[in-house]
């Protein structure tokens, strides 16, 4: 068991990050190496400066707001939630003064961010189980959502365990010890494998690893490609 915990918490993390970074670079390189064809016209009426409107389209999703407002709200909460989770994780590595400009306890959001993201994920999943989105969906779509769901669920549980139910055997100091050791390339997992709910951390990291590795080989690349696509549409 200890070996398995170690494999997931240390080598697999490195592997996942390497696969993800190299895979993403490879996919971007492939796009750039592809021949340029005469571009089709943009969508009119055009607005200037087109890059600014394209950026607005990519970040604010005005067309989703217009045509499916509930989905827009869920997407907004979900993606903002992801951003907040990212910042939250930074604080599990070390103390960042800039992030504490608005003082808060760690982890960010008192356990509500995970909950929000979970609700959004359930909504995305349900939406894909009914027509007409069902017919468009392929296994990848469900699998990614389930992966995310598991990752967030186990992550949130740890947070809830600590902040709502007072589990104190594994806390911010232990997380910081583990994560900063990973970054220093001297992984040390002792502090986080002996608590009663350590299995949650291992499961959380396991699913996160899968998700990180999946990034370059799935539609998650939309996070990067959207900027180029929207620029093409704006001309």
């Amino acid at each position, binding site marked *: 068991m200890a070996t398995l915990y170690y494999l997931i918490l240390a080598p697999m993390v490195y592997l996942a990050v390497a696969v993800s970074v190299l895979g993403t670079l490879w996919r971007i390189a492939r796009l750039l190496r592809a021949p340029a064809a005469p571009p089709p016209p943009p969508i009119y*009426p055009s607005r200037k400066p087109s890059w600014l409107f394209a950026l607005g389209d990519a970040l604010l*999703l005005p*067309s989703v707001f217009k045509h*499916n407002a509930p989905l827009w709200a869920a997407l907004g909460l979900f993606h903002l939630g992801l951003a907040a989770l990212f910042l939250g994780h930074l604080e599990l590595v070390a103390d960042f003064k800039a992030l504490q400009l608005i003082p808060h306890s760690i982890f960010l959001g008192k356990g509500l961010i995970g909950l929000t993201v979970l609700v959004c994920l359930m909504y995305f999943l349900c939406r894909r189980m009914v027509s007409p989105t069902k017919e*468009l969906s*392929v296994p990848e779509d469900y699998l990614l959502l389930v992966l995310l769901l598991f990752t967030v669920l186990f992550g949130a549980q740890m947070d809830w365990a600590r902040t709502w139910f007072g589990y104190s055997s594994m806390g911010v100091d232990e997380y910081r010890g583990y994560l900063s050791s990973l970054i220093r390339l001297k992984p040390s997992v002792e502090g986080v494998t002996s608590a009663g709910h350590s299995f949650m951390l291992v499961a959380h990291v396991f699913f996160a690893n899968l998700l990180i590795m999946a990034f370059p*080989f799935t*539609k998650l690349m939309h996070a990067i*490609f959207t900027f180029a*696509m929207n620029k093409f549409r704006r001309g």
Partner: protein
Amino acid sequence: MEAQLHDSLVTLFESKLSTQMLLNLETCSRCGICTPACHAYASMPLAKYAPAYRAEVVRRIYKRYFTKQGRFMPVLGEAKDITDAALVELKEAAYSCTGCRRCMVYCPFGIDTQQIMSIAKLLLIGAQAEPETLSMLADMSVSKGENIDALKEGFLSGIKRLEDQVVEKWRSQGEHPIPTDVVGADVLYVALAGAHSIIPAAAVFNAAGEKWSLSFFEAVNFGAFVGDPTKTRLILDRIVNEAKRLKVKEVCICECGTAVRVAKQLKDAPFAVVGLTEMHARYLRQGRIKLRKLPGSYTYHDPCQIARNGGVYDEPRYILRHLVEDFREMSPDPKYNWCCGGGGGLVAMGEETLEFRMQSAKVKAEQMRGSKAEVVVTACENCHTQLSDLNRHYALGQRVVFLSSLVADALIP
């Protein structure tokens, strides 16, 4: 399917993979926001008419041959081999899409389903499974370019027969009401085969005192409909060469959406390209023609290739303000105007596609009826044919007319 054909289709597919095409193929999150955007889906809510579903028919093949995921874990994305059954699906997807790009307005990423369908069309050509009618028309156009010297005389005699009708609309003529082959003309006008695309335009050119010349060729590009890049180029080159030979400053394309779009995509040509509607708006602005007001109530159907995909929204409305008192917008925001349902070669296939065209454009017919206008004006041959068919099929009791013919009818000295 034979291995050789299979391999050649994979190579053909690869030839379409430009940077932009890869982005179109790799970005879709299958969110389905585009689903209600398509007139075919809105009229007949079947999954196969959802834009992303059509795209997925092509994308599945893309994944199978060109992505790591499709090669190692095909089930994830339902990656698929090119088979005879796949060709049938490709044909259904591509030839129920009119290329209007309304779905592109809805998509949060701006995925261009029409571009993706161009892969399907090319594969069909490679497998000799494209609609026969369209390739027959494209071949005819190409052959015309190759044999124009032998064909000129017949064309000129046909043009001569129209002159009286031009003069009827606008009397004060020079020597030739329909000039052809004028070296040094300012404008080369490229029409269609039918007299209705020549006579009104000629009258307006003459009224505006334009130094123009009629092209020997038809503007429409059947190569583009069937999705054959080589033939598209050959067909366009006929016009480019004529324009260069006559040293014109501008090439003016008749009321044909495809023709306008294809010609406007020309890069580095020694002449500018304008559509007839833009030309007429310019004449009005410059005071070169004057129009009387026509009675009745009017609405305007924006041809997708001229408006959403060409940016010409203001010009037809400017002309109509001079032409009529009672103008009613068809769609609150013209960017969202429904496609007529006849583009992408569907109208050119005639009776073959009539039933599908009528069913898939039910929302268009409702929009026409909803405008409560007596006259539906448009500026594209395909749209005109399709709207006329809808008018008949749904017994709308409206009149469908070309904008250019209204302008010609309303000319005053």
